[in-house]
């Protein structure tokens, strides 16, 4: 009964209710959109690094940390490990790789490069290299390499050009072979665009005379939060031999950048939350105080103080819930509208072809919604409770006289 009365009360003065609703919903929407943009920004950075070759986890042979040389390699193409990987459900894709430092030469130039032998199909699942081909195509045929467009420019090479790759093999001897460029990469990642030469794994193994060995396995999962879980599982399955590292351990720099961006972001979130709180508080306080006369009337008519206060609080709660709902809806709509992301490259002036994407994509998980909603709700309840109590305490006669 009280509930129905509360509800009807709300709509007796629609203008007031709408004002309160808008304060709450805009406040919440603001919070959510701000969080989404910041979270999206950080996620974008991490994603770019991970998709640029870092992957979520990497497996190396024991001792790789000390000495990242060819001698430290996974024998037999990591066949044992492959079994464990396929048995781990959280892993989405994994790819074997062979990395060796060498030289690329063309008739006009020579450059130091990082030769990476990959399984073309597996690699496509693990990094964006295969999807970032700006000219030509990804690895397919034998005797072909794919390299970054900047590297190609330095070598004066294009799709179809011949380049000679020399590398020091396992015995320390120099070997060389000519390859043809089948595709150029334009990814935004400096490593991919200007440092790596991709070729098929068996050919890399032949070039370096490593038989079936590889130097690393890259692993990607669909949910970044599962990374530690995967690491634990693999450690249990593979024992003390191979070294399994997460992207955070491989790239502590990235972790640092995320931490600092996050902390700055939280300061800003706090600001928006407080602004929202102010807005809600002010409006609700006013709404309740305004009805002092009304409350006095109800008391005069015989309603108990407790009931009056409860009525007011329930009304405020309804308004708050509605406001929050509306706000979330508004925020989701805004996020959907932003859609692909805000392209800030137009602000970047003459900057082009740079390391990270210049698009801010908002990203929101349902659990992230909790914080602003909770804060909004608490604020609303407190802001309506206090004036309600005050109003309830007033003597009916005084209240009636209130104008």
């Amino acid at each position: 009964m009280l509930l129905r009365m509360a509800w009807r009360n709300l709509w007796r003065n629609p203008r007031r209710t709408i004002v309160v609703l808008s304060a709450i919903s805009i406040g919440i929407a603001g919070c959510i959109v701000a969080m989404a943009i910041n979270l999206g920004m950080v996620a974008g950075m991490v994603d770019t690094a991970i998709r640029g070759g870092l992957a979520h986890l990497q497996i190396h042979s024991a001792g790789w940390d000390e000495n990242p040389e060819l001698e430290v390699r996974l024998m037999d193409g990591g066949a044992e490990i492959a079994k464990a990987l396929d048995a781990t459900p959280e892993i989405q894709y994994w790819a074997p790789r062979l990395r060796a430092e060498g030289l690329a030469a063309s008739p006009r130039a020579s450059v130091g490069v990082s030769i990476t032998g990959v399984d073309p199909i597996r690699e496509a699942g693990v990094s964006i290299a295969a999807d970032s081909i700006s000219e030509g195509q990804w690895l397919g045929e034998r005797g072909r390499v794919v390299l970054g467009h900047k590297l190609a420019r330095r070598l004066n090479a294009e799709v179809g050009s011949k380049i000679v790759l020399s590398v020091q093999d396992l015995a320390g001897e120099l070997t060389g072979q000519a390859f043809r460029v089948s595709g150029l990469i334009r990814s935004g990642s400096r490593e991919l665009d200007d440092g790596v030469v991709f070729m098929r794994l068996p050919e890399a193994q032949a070039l370096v005379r490593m038989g079936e060995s590889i130097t690393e396995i890259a692993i990607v999962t669909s949910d970044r939060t599962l990374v530690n879980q995967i690491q634990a599982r693999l450690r249990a399955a593979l024992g003390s031999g191979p070294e399994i590292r997460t992207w955070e351990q491989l790239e502590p720099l990235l972790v640092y950048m995320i931490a600092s961006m996050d902390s700055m972001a939280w300061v800003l979130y706090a600001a928006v939350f407080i602004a929202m709180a102010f807005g809600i508080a002010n409006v609700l306080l006013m709404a309740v105080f305004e009805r002092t006369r009304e409350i006095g009337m109800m008391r005069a008519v015989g309603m108990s103080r407790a009931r009056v206060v409860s009525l007011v609080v329930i009304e405020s709660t309804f308004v708050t819930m509605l406001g929050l709902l509306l706000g979330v809806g508004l925020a989701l709509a805004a996020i959907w509208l932003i859609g692909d992301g805000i392209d800030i490259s137009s602000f970047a002036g003459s900057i082009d072809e740079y390391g990270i994407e210049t698009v801010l994509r908002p990203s929101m998980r349902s659990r992230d919604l909790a914080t602003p909603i909770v804060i909004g709700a608490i604020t609303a309840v407190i802001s309506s409770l206090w004036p309600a109590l005050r109003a309830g305490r007033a003597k009916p006669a005084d209240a009636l006289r209130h104008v």
Partner: protein
Amino acid sequence: MIRIALSFAGRIGRTLLISLLFQGVAIAADLSEFNLEQAPPNVDARQLARTAEDNMRSDRTFFKGEMTVVSPRLTRPRVVAFHSWEDSQEKKSLIRIDAPSKDKGTGFLKLHPNLWMYIPRVERTVRVPPSMMLQSWMGSDFSNDDLVRESSEVDDYDHRLLGIDTGQGSAVDRRSYVVEYRPHEGAPVVWGSIVAWLDIESGAPLRQDFFDEEGERLRVMRFGDFRQIEDRFVPHHWEMTPLDKRGHKTTIKIEKIEFDLEIQSSIFTTRNLKRRD
């Protein structure tokens, strides 16, 4: 996984097309400036290449000469005198620098495919790492890699006889076969093609032009001052001109060359490298 594999299947069709293009992609060098006669049909270009190579090589060769480097940077050309032994069977060689004085006594030991260097004044032996292989050798237009590279002119290439140069034109002054050398796909040679003028009489190389795959001439090697040594017709003057670097030229003048020597294999050791002779 399967999704990705399927998307690749679609690309394979295109790959076939592009690979067809690759076979013929290296554009033929433009030699129209040299008027070539039609060559007789039964000449084996590969044999010509083999003869040319053998002409300059023996199982064990001794070589003494002088390399001169001309560059716009220099007021005077740089002259490096050296002598060397080479064992082409074992793919080993030792080069000893005789002049200028700063470099005198420096030795280069090639044990294919690696290169060591010894500098007597500081008594240090250095293994030349891969990153240094493309750096200039002794300031010349040759690289360390050129010294070490053992690509066979016969085995790593396909040969095609383009015609006969009468010797009246601008290219060479003797009647010669003009042979095109095209490296095998995968051979570690940066050039798109090499065109060589081979003396009809002796088979010795008179000139070599190096082209990139677009048919642009990047280097010209000229051979002159031919002298008869037993059954070989040996050029004692070699001149290399890079066409993409103006004002550069490297010349090698042979003072003495001896073929089919008896050399002890102990010459080609790091121990011997450290001696100063």
